[in-house]
């Protein structure tokens, strides 16, 4: 166990160092190197953080759904902690998407928000995972919270492919930057900048998952110690 903790410490330190180097590089490239998009102007630069945030939100949902399914199958508390971490990060990154998106939409579309399919389905995803966190908080005990949460996470994850395909299915207004055709694709510099930002955000996501995982383990440790202090040895399942 201490060896595993040492590996986690090392991984976190390396990740944090990489993030500290990559974030200023990303900002420099976004503001000083990458060309300005011809129709939208400077406001298009929101896209370099908006898209990676959306990818991280999807990653969070994916981590939560897979860990939830594994929890229902194995009943291993560690999977539940990972699912909880994924859900919390999905809400954080989805919030960034839902705030940066309307800030981009106002000068480009002329409105902060519209009932467009991708916007609506992303808002639904955010509501589902906020609901997940509220539901967990209102459960009577950790096992009930884990079971209820797992079901919500698996059902909620079905919204991700809907968000991804929404522009094609409902012919929405949202730009299809990654799959654009007919000369509407990204400039190579823009594409490389986006990839750099994606890498930075995925590293940040991984760092935060580890942090949140450690928080979950500590919460369990506190509960086990409190249980021991009040009623004697803790049940094996909670150890």
């Amino acid at each position, binding site marked *: 166990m201490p060896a595993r903790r040492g590996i986690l410490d090392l991984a976190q330190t390396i990740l944090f160092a990489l993030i500290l180097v990559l974030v200023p*590089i990303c900002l*420099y*490239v976004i503001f*000083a*190197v*990458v*060309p*300005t*998009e*011809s129709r939208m*102007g*400077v*406001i298009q*630069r*929101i896209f370099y*953080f*908006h898209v990676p*945030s959306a990818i991280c939100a999807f990653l969070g949902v994916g981590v939560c759904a897979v860990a939830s399914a594994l929890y229902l199958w194995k009943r291993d508390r560690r999977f539940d902690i990972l699912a909880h971490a994924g859900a919390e990060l999905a809400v*954080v990154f989805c*919030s*960034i998407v839902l*705030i*940066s998106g309307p*800030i*981009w939409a*106002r*000068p480009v579309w002329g409105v902060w928000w519209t009932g467009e399919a991708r916007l609506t389905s992303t808002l639904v995803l955010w509501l589902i995972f906020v609901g997940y966190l509220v539901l967990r908080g209102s459960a009577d005990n950790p096992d009930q919270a884990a079971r209820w949460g797992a079901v919500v996470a698996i059902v909620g994850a079905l919204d991700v492919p809907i968000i991804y395909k929404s522009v094609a299915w409902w012919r929405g207004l949202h730009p299809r930057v990654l799959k654009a055709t007919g000369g509407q694709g990204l*400039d*190579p*510099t823009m594409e*490389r900048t986006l990839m750099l930002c994606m890498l930075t955000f995925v590293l*940040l996501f991984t760092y*935060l998952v580890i*942090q*949140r995982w*450690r*928080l979950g383990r*500590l*919460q369990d*440790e*506190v509960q086990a*110690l*409190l249980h*021991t*202090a009040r009623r004697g040895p803790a049940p094996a399942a909670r150890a």
Partner: protein
Amino acid sequence: MTPVDLPAFYGPLALLMQSSEPITRFTAEAAAAQPAAIARGFRFLIAAYSAVWAILAIYMVSISMRLRRLSNQVRRLKEQAG
């Protein structure tokens, strides 16, 4: 307009960027032609980036505070248990 001069620190990155042919550039001429539109775009851009970093910073500080509080609690409970 000449390409942006990159500091030596970003040398490898400059190589990465050199090979591309940008479609358009945020040129001084373009900025002079539409100053109001450019300034408005920058206001929205700064608002968006501030929001992104504020959310991430608040979340990271919140996790650090919760971790510290729980670590202290674990230490205290272990001391009490002997």
